[in-house]
């Protein structure tokens, strides 16, 4: 219990301190005021090794063993500077973010550039809970990485602080920085399948008949095609068969509007998130050429078609009253 409280206090303290120390930016230059250096676990093991060596050297009054001891000790000190130099001078900036669905991952594109001609080896970048990705800048002066980030809430998802760290060259010292990037990732609602069908809207007024899309139906003759077993016997073009042209099937089409409306009201009685999830799934289910619109409280998006339209709808779902969600 006490441990929990202490832990929470410590975390909030750390959080506030970091907030002041490394404010949110879209680009960070790693330098002395945002790089932290501590001995690593390996380094502590190394210190134990040094103590053992010192005991050996002291006990047998052996100057060479003592030299080795002190050399290794000096190596730790020197290593501090070298590890620091492995981070300092790196400019990390967000170039782009790619949206994703809650429960899945979004992607943040980062550009890592060096401000000097030093070689950077094994710099690890990681969001909390994600395997780090390792980059190096040896001959090239910049590189870009795409980091996936798990999305936990809908709306403009703000990733946690990115941990940039390195153990190079000796692993005795770890230099790290927690960078807060101003890189909101658009998080769509988590899709949930539902049995509710979208409202289909037929066009009654045929003002613009020729521009309406058609679906297979019974009203208008559309043409002939080859007979497939299972076609209705009534639709076989017997006259053509009598002419000796073989079996052919007559096809018909209806002037039916394919316009669907995804409506908030359809999911009566559900919570906001549940409705959004189902709407999201419905939109995802649509074929590329289908036409659909979206009705949300206070927002009407006219039916449209294509990938851009889908994105627009999803974005609307993502941003619908999202601040209330956090």
């Amino acid at each position, binding site marked *: 219990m006490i441990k929990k409280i202490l832990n929470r206090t410590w975390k909030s303290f750390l959080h506030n301190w970091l907030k002041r120390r490394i404010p949110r930016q879209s680009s960070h230059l790693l*330098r*002395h005021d945002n790089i932290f250096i501590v001995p690593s676990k*390996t380094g502590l*093991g190394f210190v134990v*090794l040094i103590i*053992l*060596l010192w*005991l*050996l*050297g*002291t*006990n*047998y*009054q*052996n*100057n*060479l*063993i*003592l*030299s*080795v*001891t*002190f*050399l*290794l*000790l*000096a*190596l730790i*000190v*020197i*290593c501090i500077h070298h590890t*620091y*130099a492995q981070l*300092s*001078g790196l400019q990390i900036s967000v170039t782009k973010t790619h949206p994703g669905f809650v429960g899945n991952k979004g992607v943040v594109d980062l550009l890592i550039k060096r401000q*000097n001609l030093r070689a950077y*080896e*094994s710099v690890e*970048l990681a969001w909390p*809970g*994600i*395997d*780090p*990705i390792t*980059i*190096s*800048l040896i001959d090239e*002066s*910049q*590189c*870009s*990485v*795409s*980091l*996936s980030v798990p999305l936990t809430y809908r709306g403009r998802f703000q990733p946690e602080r990115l941990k940039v760290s390195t*153990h*190079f*060259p*000796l*692993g005795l010292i770890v230099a790290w920085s927690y960078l807060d990037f101003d890189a909101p990732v658009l998080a769509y609602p988590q899709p949930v399948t539902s049995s509710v069908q979208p409202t289909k809207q037929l066009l009654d007024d045929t003002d613009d008949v020729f521009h309406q899309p058609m679906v297979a139906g019974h009203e208008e003759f559309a043409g002939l095609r080859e007979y497939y077993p299972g076609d209705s016997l009534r639709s076989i073009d017997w006259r053509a068969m009598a002419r000796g042209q073989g079996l052919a099937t007559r096809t018909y089409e209806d002037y039916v509007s394919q316009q669907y409306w995804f409506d908030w009201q359809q999911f009566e009685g559900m919570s906001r998130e549940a409705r959004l999830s189902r709407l999201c799934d419905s939109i995802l289910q649509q074929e590329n050429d289908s036409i659909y619109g979206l009705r949300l409280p206070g927002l009407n998006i006219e039916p449209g078609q294509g990938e851009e339209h889908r994105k627009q709808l999803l974005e609307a779902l993502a941003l619908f009253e999202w601040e209330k969600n956090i």
Partner: protein
Amino acid sequence: MAFFGNQKIADSSHSKPKKYVNRQSLLGLLFAQGSAVLLHFSQAPIWLLLLAVVVFIWRLQILRSQWSFPNRFVRLCLVIFSMAAVVLYYKEWYALEPMVSLLIIAFLLKLLEVDQQRDALILIFVGYFVTASAFLFDQGIISTLLGIFVLWSLTACMVVLHGSRIQYLSRRTVRMVSVLLIQSVPLMLLMLFVFPRIGALWSVPIQSSSAVTGVSDSMSPGDFSQLTRSRKLAFRVSFDDDRIPDPSQRYWRGLVFTEFDGRRWERPKGANLYKGKEPDKTEFIADGPTFNYEVILEPTNTPWIYSIPLAEVTDKRFIRSAANEMWLRDPVTQRIKYKASSTLNYRTRERDERLKQSLMLPKGYNPRSIEMAQKWRRESISTENYIKKILNFYNQKFTYTLSPPKLGQHTVDEFLFSSQSGFCEHFSSSFVVLMRAAGIPARVVVGYQGGKWNDADNYLLVRQYDAHAWAEVWFSDKGWVRVDPTAAVAPNRIEQGLLDTLSVADQDLLEHSGLPSFDWINRLSLKWDSINYRWQSWVLSYDQDTQSTFLKKLLGEVTSTRLAILLIAPGMIMLIIFGFFTLRNISKPTLRKVKLYQALIRRLERRGVPSVAGEPLTDHCKRATHTIPDKKDLIHKLSHSINTCLYSSEDDISNHSYKELKQLIHRL
């Protein structure tokens, strides 16, 4: 996006990642480990080296995917067999040697398990320890250099293990590791000199087989002739000033034997200083010139040291025994260094009971010798006369040889009257018996005699074949006086050393150095020895005492505050210097194009064309061409090139063009 160096996408979220050792690090590890084990070559038993070879081949085959990792049963068998080997090989457990062997075994067998980064790190740490422990057994130049190399390769292993694209034997690694180590050296030296030294904390002998090297604590016929076949180094001596005793005076006194059982000479029972009571001090009166010298004694596994009588050793580690021997508390298992000063003219006093001890002879042994001694004593007018008579006897009838015939029960009788050929032990033993039989207190002294003078570095090299035994005879007016019967038989042995004394047949008995004995080889080996000697005296010289003198010289008075300042100050200075450079670099990463620009402006100002605020570089240069018309072309060129630089990316400026432009600016 052609300018992107490399594009990576991270998309994994499994639990804790296991980092596996890559091929590069593993090869490096094998290399470093091999050299670390090689460092123990002289000390480790041969089967351990065989194990190393087997393990290395196995691991290489795993690396080449030819063999697989050993399963648990095989590993267990390997551990059990190696443990058994250690148990069988080393009889004595309470020593460092078997422990180091165990460490090496663990070090080797762990290699068959390594596939993760953690294992590799443990292996490297153990590697550092194994390397350092090799210095317990040998601190020579060669093993030091090899040790540095092993440290280097282990550190390189660490670097490769933590890098992702760095190769083990690439130029970048070589440079990086060398820079790391070289930068560490000043700090290491500081700590080495200043870090407080404390004495030994516990005592675990280094060698488990405490095989005594050199003179042992008893003497029977055959011991010395065995010993003198060895060319091994016993000790080295350097003298202060240029005062060096004559070859005939270089008697390195070790032990004094007074007890004789008919065959074997020994120290009196209970005379071991620290097991019994305090040693009683006998008075020594020394006057005349003294020699100051420093001895570096090779490990002997015995607790006494050698010095020219009458020696004064200031070192508190040593205690003088009643018979004027110098003793240590523990056997000398590592090379040690001590200072002594000797006076050749001295007199000693002795207690009566000890004189009585020096007259005792075993009953029933050597009747003929005793009879002869008593007869000759009666015929001589004085002790001196008697001694002269015996030495004459040796001189006329005896031969000096490394391979004397074996002796039976009455060793002295047989030697004196039948074989009449022998070695220093035979002469000293028979001489003391003859003295005692005549009622003159006498005793056998063992140690070394002579030594080879190394001209290159002015020190004396005493080898095992310089081991010698002589006698001391009691005169009531002078005390104990050295008499060397061997000198009567083979004066060359004393004057020129053993090698010149031996017959050709005897010389073959000596251990071969492995090299034909040419003059230049001898000179080369002497030179090499003198380099080694300097190194050893340098490495050994810094101890607790030297440190305190050094610190006193440096600080005036050693207080904890001053010591702390001395320790912290250089570190602080280094931090400040380092910090200054890094901070300056970070706050203003001065681009090279900016440097060029500033250099040009500075140059122009010096040539009398001051810059005007807000003026572009081209305009500034244009004005400059009016002031310095003779450099018109150069200024035009610089103006154009640097302007181009200013508007291009920093990476586009090659090292070559940067240097060229700098030179051009200087020509302005």
